[in-house]
């Protein structure tokens, strides 16, 4: 395990990664601007999926509140863009709501650096605080999951209610420029696409490092038996908090990229349905494998857009069928398929095989 450097499996893996990276970087060559923009959005979703997999697939904690973290990242970026677009005047929706001065917490968002940092750190911090009060008090399983749903409802209600500060139901939109470049121009879109690819690869490398490190092994140990981990001398709450926080930070990053691609963020994008959808990407792709989670996000969203274009009346049935098929036939998600191929190829025993995990969704 530690001495084999370039075994055939490793070479294959490396070849696979390289091919995937090349395919992603060259996508502008073979995709239309419209498709490229869609793919960019899906890649941003893949970053959320990676983060979710870290906390759900590896640590065994199901969060149905990642929409909030995604949304917070999105709002941070949108606030910067809005201030840029308003050019020193009050953003239009504040004007309509009767505000006369820029609220204090909006001011720092005129700096891109601050907005960018806040887009990652705010969700991470919120997750840390939530994690502190839950994991430390050993709230876990469904109870934790329900709390994350509560977080979604609270946040969405707050954002809708505070129209003067958040743009209410409409969210924050009506901006078109980043660093003086039009967000709608094909060149900018292409650059943003590449930025997203780089961000996704960086997120993947980060997650892979985390998962392969001893930290990652402790996370999996917590998933297997939180109490046992405690009696070895680890404090699981701290590990869970850190994992949850990193996971939320990644969702925030994805939210920022999403806003750059789509040009709007509103409470409906951080609600209950999107939060659950995010979990579906990971479940379908294969929790407990990073590639599976990321692929799940890309494939599921691609399927959604293809189905809805081709069969505008029936696409939801196709999506439903897809879920049923995966749940019934591929309990380890799409990535489980790879595991089976690997098993055939290497003739390993079941005990050594595969990274995919299948266990009850909610403990």
């Amino acid at each position: 395990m530690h001495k084999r450097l370039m075994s055939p499996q490793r070479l294959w893996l490396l070849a696979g990664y390289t091919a995937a990276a090349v395919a992603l970087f060259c996508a502008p060559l073979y995709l239309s601007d419209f498709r490229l923009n869609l793919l960019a959005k899906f890649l941003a979703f893949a970053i959320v999926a990676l983060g979710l997999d870290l906390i759900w697939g590896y640590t065994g904690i199901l969060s149905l509140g990642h929409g909030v973290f995604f949304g917070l990242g999105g709002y941070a970026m949108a606030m910067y863009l809005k201030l840029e677009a308003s050019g020193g005047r009050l953003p239009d929706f504040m004007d309509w709501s009767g505000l006369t001065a820029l609220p204090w917490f909006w001011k720092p968002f005129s700096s891109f650096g601050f907005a960018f940092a806040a887009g990652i750190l705010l969700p991470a911090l919120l997750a840390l605080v939530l994690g502190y009060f839950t994991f430390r008090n050993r709230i876990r399983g469904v109870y934790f999951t329900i709390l994350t749903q509560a977080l979604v409802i609270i946040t969405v209600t707050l954002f809708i209610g505070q129209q003067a500060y958040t743009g209410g139901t409409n969210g924050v939109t009506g901006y078109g420029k980043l660093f003086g470049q039009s967000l709608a121009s094909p060149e900018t879109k292409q650059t943003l696409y590449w930025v997203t690819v780089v961000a996704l690869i960086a997120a993947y490398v980060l997650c892979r490092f985390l998962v392969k490190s001893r930290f990652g092994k402790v996370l999996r140990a917590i998933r297997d038996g939180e109490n046992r981990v405690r009696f070895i001398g680890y404090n699981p709450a701290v590990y869970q908090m850190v994992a949850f926080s990193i996971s939320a930070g990644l969702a925030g990053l994805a939210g920022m990229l999403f806003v750059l691609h789509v040009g709007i963020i509103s409470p409906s994008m951080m609600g209950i349905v999107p939060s659950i959808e995010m979990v579906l990407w990971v479940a379908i792709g294969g929790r407990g494998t990073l590639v599976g989670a990321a692929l799940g996000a890309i494939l599921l969203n691609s399927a959604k857009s293809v189905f809805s274009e081709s069969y505008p009346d029936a696409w939801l049935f196709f999506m439903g069928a897809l879920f049923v098929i995966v749940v019934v036939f591929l309990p380890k998600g799409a990535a489980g398929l790879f595991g089976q191929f690997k098993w055939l190829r290497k003739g390993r025993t079941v005990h050594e095989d595969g990274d995919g995990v299948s266990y009850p969704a909610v403990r």
Partner: protein
Amino acid sequence: MKMGMESAILQCDEVTVDFDGFKAVQGMSFRLERGELRFLIGPNGAGKTTMLDVICGKVKPTVGKVLFGGKIDITRKKEHQIAELGIGRKFQTPSIFPTLTVFENLEIAMRQNRSVLAALRAKLNAEEQERIAAQLEMIGLQEKAYWRAGGLSHGEKQWLEIGMMLLQEPEILLLDEPVAGMTDNETEKTGELLRTISQTQSIVVVEHDMEFVRNFASKVTVMHEGRLLKEGSMEDVQRDDRVAEVYLGKRRDADAGRSTA
């Protein structure tokens, strides 16, 4: 006597555990010397496992103190803090991490800095690899080092857990029925192992297998209905009428095993 008090690695004073009115342990006191191999026996519901739970922090006593190393009261500490102080626990059912490999199970159990930052930076050095390899050999699992631990047999899981605990290098090992489900051969091997360990570390074993207790115990503590009934050598204990009585007053040993199994 005063000098002796200070050398005790573990001292429980008047420990009472109250589960909503049911007193699982009542005013139990006992002391464990350094390098002692102590057997804790008694019929079902005597409070043996609860006593171990108190020592490792799983259960907080309602009354009483537990002193570790003569000065640290561990009843106010959290489980992971107690484990870090040097008290290791092996549970009745083998609790290993099934989706981790055997090697990984040992790797994370190994004595080390347990903070998140340390875990992020941790790299297996040659010395640690050797220690894990040596442990694998001792528990006879070197062939299965890269198996998922969930795929091991019951006995192998028991051994893995013992291996994990040894790598943890606790000063006190708490074992709850370590030989349950083991073959005679394995039982013998476990007994020898406990004897070896007790040269450097202190051990408390809760056990129902009287044969095993007789073969390996130097000092035995008998509990009954949450209280200390008798403490002494195996012969003393076997000769004691009250002990015979709580074990249903029948033939002392064989039935003792059966009545509580």
